[in-house]
């Protein structure tokens, strides 16, 4: 076994290190390199890709459940709206701000902001309903400037700028790729009607063919939003999501 010995210093080295430590301290007292952000009077300027409070746009949501499927913390629950569609709710008591939900949202309904300082009175309040996710929370802005850290050759320096940093990022949410559900093997359909039950857009319909005494399923590609729920649920696994032409 090889042992690492403690480094040997002679008295000259020791004196040198003492002097250097003390002189560095003295230098910092006279000319300190201050890196404290005086929050809330000023804020750190975060990059636009900051993973903060999540906003939701119901117009863009296709109720695909993707966000709630992907959430590793199980923070997103889908809740039925009066219209019969399902929209996400978000429990900030569980959320770990990985923003997988934002990244996976096909319609770009979820978007990130730079808001990171939200306070709640209790755990129940942290459960954010769909309606509360649409508008950003009320923020009392006391900041008169923002701070950026800059790394020059050896040290960190602060750059202070007057004015308020925009907390809602302007970056446009992803447009996604329009998809549509398509049956690839009609002969295997057993007409279980699962797709019809699961479709929130009313795009799947069934009609009875009196002559042949069978039920035919029909997907209306105009109504289909491409959420993929039927694809997931289909008992015979014959549905696919394909790009809309």
């Amino acid at each position, binding site marked *: 076994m090889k042992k690492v010995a403690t480094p040997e210093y002679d008295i000259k080295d020791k004196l040198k290190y003492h002097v250097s*430590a*003390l002189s*560095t*301290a003295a230098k*910092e*007292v006279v000319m*300190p*390199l*201050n*890196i*404290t952000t*005086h929050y809330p009077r000023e804020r750190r300027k975060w990059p636009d890709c900051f993973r903060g409070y999540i906003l939701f746009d119901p117009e863009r949501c296709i109720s695909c459940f993707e966000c709630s499927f992907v959430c590793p913390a199980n923070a997103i629950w889908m809740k039925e709206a009066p219209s019969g569609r399902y929209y996400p709710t978000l429990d900030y008591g569980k959320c770990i701000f990985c923003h997988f939900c934002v990244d996976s949202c096909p319609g770009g309904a979820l978007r990130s902001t730079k808001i990171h300082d939200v306070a709640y009175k209790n755990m129940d309040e942290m459960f954010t309903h769909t309606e509360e996710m649409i508008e950003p929370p009320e923020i009392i802005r006391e900041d008169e400037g923002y701070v950026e850290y800059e790394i020059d050759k050896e040290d960190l320096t602060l750059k202070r700028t007057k004015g308020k940093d925009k907390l809602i990022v302007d970056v446009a949410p992803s447009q996604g790729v329009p998809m549509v559900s398509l049956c690839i093997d009609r002969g295997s359909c057993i007409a279980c009607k699962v797709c019809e039950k699961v479709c929130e857009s009313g795009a799947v319909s069934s009609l009875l063919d009196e002559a042949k005494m069978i039920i035919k399923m029909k997907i209306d590609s105009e109504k289909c939003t491409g959420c993929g729920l039927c694809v997931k649920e289909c008992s015979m696994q014959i549905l696919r999501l394909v790009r809309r032409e």
Partner: protein
Amino acid sequence: MIDINAVISMMMNNQVDIPLLQPLLKPMLEMPLVGYLIALVLWKPFFVLILMPGFATLGIMLLILPWIERKMVGRMQWRVGPREISPHTRGIIQLLADSLRFLFQEVIIHKDAHRSYFLQFPFLYFIPVLLPLLFINAGTAGNPLVPIVSDYGLQLMVALICLMPVFILGVGWASNNRFAFIGTVREAFLYFAYEIPFIIVVLAMIVLYGTSNTVGVVNAQSGVWWGIIQNPLAALTFFIAMVMATARLPFEIPEADQEVSFGPFVEYSGIAFGLAYVMGYEKMYVLSALMTMLFLGGGSGPVIPGLGELSYAIWFVLKTLIVLVVMANLRGVYPRYRLDQALKIGWGAMLILALVAVAWSLVMGVIL
């Protein structure tokens, strides 16, 4: 029956001479009650012991020294230190705010603690802190400002200072808590490690000055021949012993926050904690005053015009403050030694340094 006039005239014969205030004080001294009061305040022993550099200055130091320390160490570590309270004065009243908070906080005495000792020791600690100030000489050569002139002044001061750890041991014992016990034992270990070099160094200075009278000690440092120039080794050893004695970093072993969470004082809360918290600073102040007197020429310095003898006291307090600030700022520079390392330093390097300092003093005594 004490003759009040005799007392007053005794005081009047031994007044701090402040030329600037003379025209103001003269008419006031003639008034009956106010005159007595002013005569008492300006009576040298009273002035030194109670006002400067005694009790009142100690009180002010306790209020601003932690602030200075926190501010400067903050700058060293790229922080800002206290600031939210009174930001325009850079948070100078932080300690006032802290003490207000201490005052209104509940003092909790847990049921295993020894109730009366637990509460008494932080108060009793003022005895060994204030009594050494009885012999302090804040004057210069030929112009002593000392409450009690005694031929054994230095020995008495050292004896009283050596009493201080006993109170800390008492605090730890009365707390009846495992962290307090560990901290107390560490304090006891350190106590012996620094106390012996400390006493030997003071001895070296007594040998060098040929007297242990505090008046004689300052007289021996006339001009630029301060103690630190006559015997730098002794000054260095004294300083290290002082840092160890006050349990400051790098020797903050008994209180080590991260290991024993403030050691002997872990059970204190409220105003009792406030008192326990300033115990260290009180000791720092007394030891720095002793260092100023022994090594930095007491109150010697250019006379500030118009202030007369008051300027000596001011110089004395300034020097003490500088020593205090240097000592406090070691916190931002050094990490903490382990107990065994500190003991090795105490019983090894420091003891040797102290003995060499005695030899140096003997040689210097022969030369001079």
